[in-house]
């Protein structure tokens, strides 16, 4: 068996976690797409970064599933932006994804001893 190289692992982790990240960030307050991408980049110290071409289709898909809902808001002196907020259904998914992710991370920790390394 060949091992996944770290680049692939990296990408897959990011992909798997993308939904979780977005749902988490709109949990407390509505945010627009640019705000989301900057927050993800800043809070991950640049480790996680979304391309424009992947972020907005993802937001669209989440909205289609009914996990988030978007609304155009126009502020004085600014162009209109679409703000997304979490729906009750999304909140349920977020809780479930957090549990899954936590369980997964703990399992990895127990085996790989990442915390004690």
């Amino acid at each position: 068996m060949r091992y996944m190289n770290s680049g692939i692992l990296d990408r897959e982790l990011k992909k798997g976690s993308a939904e979780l990240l977005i749902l988490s960030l709109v949990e407390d307050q509505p945010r627009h797409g640019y705000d989301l991408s900057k927050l993800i980049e800043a809070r991950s110290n640049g480790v996680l970064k979304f391309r424009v071409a992947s972020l907005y289709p993802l937001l669209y898909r989440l909205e289609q599933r009914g996990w988030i809902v978007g609304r155009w808001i126009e502020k004085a002196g600014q162009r209109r932006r679409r703000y997304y907020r979490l729906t009750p259904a999304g909140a349920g998914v977020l809780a479930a994804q957090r549990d899954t992710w936590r369980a997964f991370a703990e399992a990895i920790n127990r085996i790989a001893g990442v915390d004690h390394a």
Partner: protein
Amino acid sequence: MPEWPRRISEEMRQHLDDEYDALRADGLAHDEAMRRLAGDVDELASMRSHPVDAMTTDVRYALRMLRKNPGFTAIVMVTLALGIGATAAIFTLVDAVMLRPYPYPDMDRIVMVAETTRMGQMISVAWANFQDWREQNRVFEHLGIYRGTVLNLTGGEQPERLIASLVSSDVFKAMGLQARLGRAFTADEDRPGAPRVAVVSERFWRSHLGGEASAVGRTIVLDDEPHTVVGVMPAEMRFPSRTTDVWLPVGLFVPTFPAERGAHPGLFGVGKLKPGISVTRASADMDAIARRLEQQYPISNTDHTVALQPYYEQIVQNIRPALLALSGAVAFVLLIGCANLANLMLARAETRQRELAIREALGASRRRIAQQMLTESVLMALCGGTLGALLAWWGVKAFVATRPTTVPRIDQVAVDLRVLTFALVVSVLVGIAFGLAPALRAASVDLLTSLKDAARGTAGAGRRTRSALVIAEVALALVLLVGAGLTIRSFTSLTAIDLGFDPSHVVTMRVSLPNARYPQLARWSAFHRELLRRSAAIPAIEAVGLNSSTPLEGGGCPS
């Protein structure tokens, strides 16, 4: 149409504007900010679905991919340039020699006619036999006869040796070309004792007669006899040879031919078949005549018949095997190149599978992804093809410069629009050929398996395709190698033949004396003795000799 594409594109535009503003706020110049955004912009543009836009975007995206992998791009370009270049170069030859139409109307009806023994040995035509053939045949529209010779042109500053052809007036009719100026000779001029006339080539007309219309009617002195120029043949007239300077009526020379039927004075026939008459049917007709002559003249004609060969066949018969072999070889080289590139592309497609899976997840259709992969490979093929055309141009030029004498129409061998079109078509086909496997795989890839494969390593189907390609490549290369090896062996054994003499520092020259001035053997011999004596006196000459033909030349036929 759902609302989302417009909505998403507005959000994305907004995002790019925000990013641009942020970059400018960080102190970046406009150009630099745009450069940083270029990747996103291209990626977004490629998601649009308008076909023309999509094509432009694909090309731009493909160019970016090529620039990003210079090593890969270089390997692909060199492989393609060699494969397409070699193919285009050989096509140039095949096109000039075999495919391009010859200038003679109804070329497929022009046949060469020779006398042959029933054992198949070809001999030249006896004058008396030709007369009977011409009278008795029912298959030829025109049947003519010709013989090559050399003549001395005098009257200028110094005598000059001309390549001449003695032809019957039917030869021009059989070849079907009109004189460029004046006319060909008539049947009346083509008989013993007729006033001496000549038809000259366009080349001779330009070099010796000033290329003027008044050249018709002028007199030139050939072998001490004045001849009136009655016509100028166009440059397309290359019969019997492209070097022919002047055509004279063969009828004038009939008295010099041996009278007996058994003598074969170097004449050969050329005819144009009547419409609808096949070569087989004509051969049968001529054979019937030959059998009648056999009964009439058993001493001279026993076991003699007539051999017909289409003129086109005669031109290409010697070069065709070589051209076919070369075409096969370059086709193999191109195929190996394609297999190699398909392999490289597949390997690369595997490393790009995640990229493709993500694109698909974002809404790009599989067809769209396949189209983009094909655009990439066709673009590479076109770039490689351009390099290849340059290589072909250079190679063909170098080849023509060696002045190979065995290639018909060598002066017309050049990379032209036809060859470039051919190279273009080959490039596109090659691009599709080596891009198809990766594109098909890209079209059939699905996100889930792609992710699983990422964990497992290489995909099974991909590995099988690539193994098959490698096997095909090795097989083709082996055939090519064996062919090349055999050719080299033939060549080395040919060059290893001991000539029995040392050809270095040896030069030859040809001399022909006009019969009118040297009718007796004694005068003729005296001339040659004097030639030898004076040549031997030249300090730079070590030894000098005379012969009717040069070693290895065979025969004694002037050429």
